[in-house]
Every structure is written in structure tokens, then in C-alpha cells.
């Protein structure tokens, strides 16, 4: 015999299970580690907080590497979607999330470049050479962008992480998968190359 559900609602509450699944606590100003743990437990607010903290950094790194706002947005999206599907891949004991996501972004960029280079003619496959429209009007910034974009990849990545994103050599080493000393020497060499390129450009202009 059909009975009104209201007769059982109190009983269901007494049984100790929340009446609804949506019992997410608001995000407090907890540490990142706490946010990561909550994200792993499926906490949407914690993931949203992590996204808000880190998306700009991931997007900028991809923007420097591609020179294209739309493609950088796609890379940033791929990075966070990957994180959603691999919540256990990040180990807080081995480093910070910023470096981890930087490493994921780097892998995504490499994979995408490999795929694109397969189909593009050689002269079009030099991604990131032209600055984005927002930079193109400022002459000095545009020149510096082009100079950075023309660096060999290992130097370019190091300059972007250490100089533009102001990461420590240790964080950059974690993303690049190399020793801290290697980061330092690459940075030194990259600065020499940049100075030389920009000097040559100034001489040509004058």
C-alpha cells in the first residue's frame, strides 16, 4: 500500500545519513595541502579554489610557449581536465602543485607540438615566434618576446619559468626535470643569447 514519504523522513534523518548528497562544506582559508586532500575526496569547492589559484600561471606559461591566447587557453583546460582525472598523481610530499601543474603543461605543450609539426610546413611550425596581439603594439616588449621565442626550447622554458614567472631555480628544475645547477647554467646562457639578439636588433635599427 502506498504511504506518504513524509511519514518516513524523520526516521531517515535519525538513521544518520544526510538527507541529500550535497553536504559540501564551504572552502575556508586552509592550506593548499588541505585543498588538495579535499579535491581528492571529490570536493568541488576545493577544486574550484585550486583552479582559481593556479589557472593564471598555467595559462601564462602556455601563452609564452605558444604565443596564442586561444591555444594557451586550450592547454590550460587540458591541464586541469587531466588533473580531474588523475587526482592521485600529485604527491604533496614531492613538491608544490604549481610546479606539478607546470610539468603537466609542459608535457601537454610538447605533445601538441609534436602533433602539429607532423602536419605543418617547416616555416609555420615555429610556434610562439610572433607576440600576441596585446603585446604587439609595445615595440620593446614585442622585440623581447620575439627574442625569447627564438631561443632554443631548453633556454626559452628556463627564462619563462625563472624570469617571467619568477619561480625559484628549484621549482623550475622540478618542472623541467633537470638539476638545479642545470637551470642556473641555462639561465646564464639564455641571458647572454638574449642580450646578443637584442643588441643586434638595436644595431640594425640604428
Amino acid at each position, binding site marked *: 500500500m502506498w504511504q506518504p*514519504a513524509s511519514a518516513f523522513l524523520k526516521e531517515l534523518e*535519525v538513521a544518520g545519513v544526510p538527507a541529500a548528497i550535497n553536504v559540501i562544506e564551504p572552502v575556508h582559508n586552509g592550506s593548499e595541502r588541505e585543498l588538495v586532500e579535499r579535491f581528492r575526496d571529490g570536493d568541488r569547492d576545493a577544486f574550484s579554489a585550486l583552479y582559481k589559484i593556479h589557472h593564471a600561471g598555467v595559462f601564462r606559461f602556455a601563452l609564452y610557449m605558444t604565443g596564442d591566447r586561444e591555444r594557451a587557453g586550450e592547454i590550460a*583546460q587540458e591541464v586541469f581536465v587531466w588533473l580531474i582525472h588523475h587526482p592521485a598523481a600529485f604527491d604533496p610530499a614531492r613538491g608544490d602543485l604549481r610546479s606539478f601543474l607546470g610539468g603537466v603543461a609542459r608535457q601537454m605543450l610538447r605533445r601538441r607540438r609534436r602533433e602539429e609539426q607532423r602536419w605543418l610546413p617547416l616555416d609555420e611550425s615555429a610556434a610562439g615566434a610572433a607576440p600576441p596581439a596585446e603585446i604587439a603594439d609595445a615595440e620593446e616588449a614585442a622585440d623581447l618576446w620575439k627574442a625569447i621565442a627564438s631561443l632554443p626550447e631548453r633556454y626559452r622554458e628556463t627564462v619563462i619559468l625563472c624570469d617571467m614567472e619568477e619561480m625559484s631555480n628549484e621549482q623550475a628544475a622540478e618542472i623541467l626535470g633537470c638539476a638545479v645547477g642545470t637551470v642556473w647554467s641555462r639561465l646564464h646562457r639564455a641571458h647572454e643569447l638574449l642580450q646578443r639578439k637584442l643588441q643586434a636588433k638595436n644595431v640594425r635599427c640604428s
Partner: protein
Amino acid sequence: MNDPQLRSGMRDLAKRVAGIEPPEGLEAAVMAEFDLAHRRRPPVRMFAMCGALAASLLAGALLLRPAPEATAAESQPFYPIPYTAPLEPYERVLIVQKQVSVSELIAAGFHIPAADPNTAMQADVMVSQDGRARAIRPVSFERSVQ
């Protein structure tokens, strides 16, 4: 160009790049993927909560009943089946008594570590108007089902 000039240029460039916003809809797309992924895979915490509840329910039922065939259904509460929508006061429900195996309970989301999956129990099952089981109330434990 010397090193300080280079660094100054880099700071200026970094400032300009920081002003470039990601494409619109990026956050919405990422959060939609999060929601989709978690609809497919319910949160581990909910499994743990429901598991603990189910374990205590079964342990309590086993310990408090002197005879296996004893019936005290009315004194037991109904336990909501995990991951089902909560009942609204205006809905109507049907109580059906049936034999439920422990393996079925496990499949429904209850975590019952100590129980033999071959064990069955007589239970009142609360069925809502959409035909779905919403809650369960153990009545008695029965023999092993093979």
C-alpha cells in the same frame, strides 16, 4: 643591452602578459568536466560514510538479535540507499518485504566488511513512485544463499 636593462624589459613584458586574460568560458568548461567526472564516480567520502553506517547497522542487527529468525522490523529505522535522491514529503512510497543478499547491499553502495557476501537478509525495502528502492530496513538475517 646590459643585464639590468634586460631584467627591466622582462619585468615590463611580464606585467603586460599578466594583463592578458584566458579565453572566456575556460573555468566553466573545467568545472563542467569536474561535475561530469564526479557524477560518474561518486565521492569516496560518501562511500566511507555509507559503509560505516551499513556496517554498524548489520553489526547492531546481528548482536541485538538473540535468534536469527527474530522479527523486530518496527523497531529498526530505515536506512537510505546511498546515492539515491532524497525523498520529498509529498512523495508516496511502498514498503515491500523481500530477501536481500549482502552482495546486493554491497552493490548498492553499502560497505559491509565483516559480512559474508553469501548471507541474505529479510528486509523491508522502501520503493518510491519512480520504482526505485530508496531505503532499506533489516528484518532478519537468514541462511547462506548459494
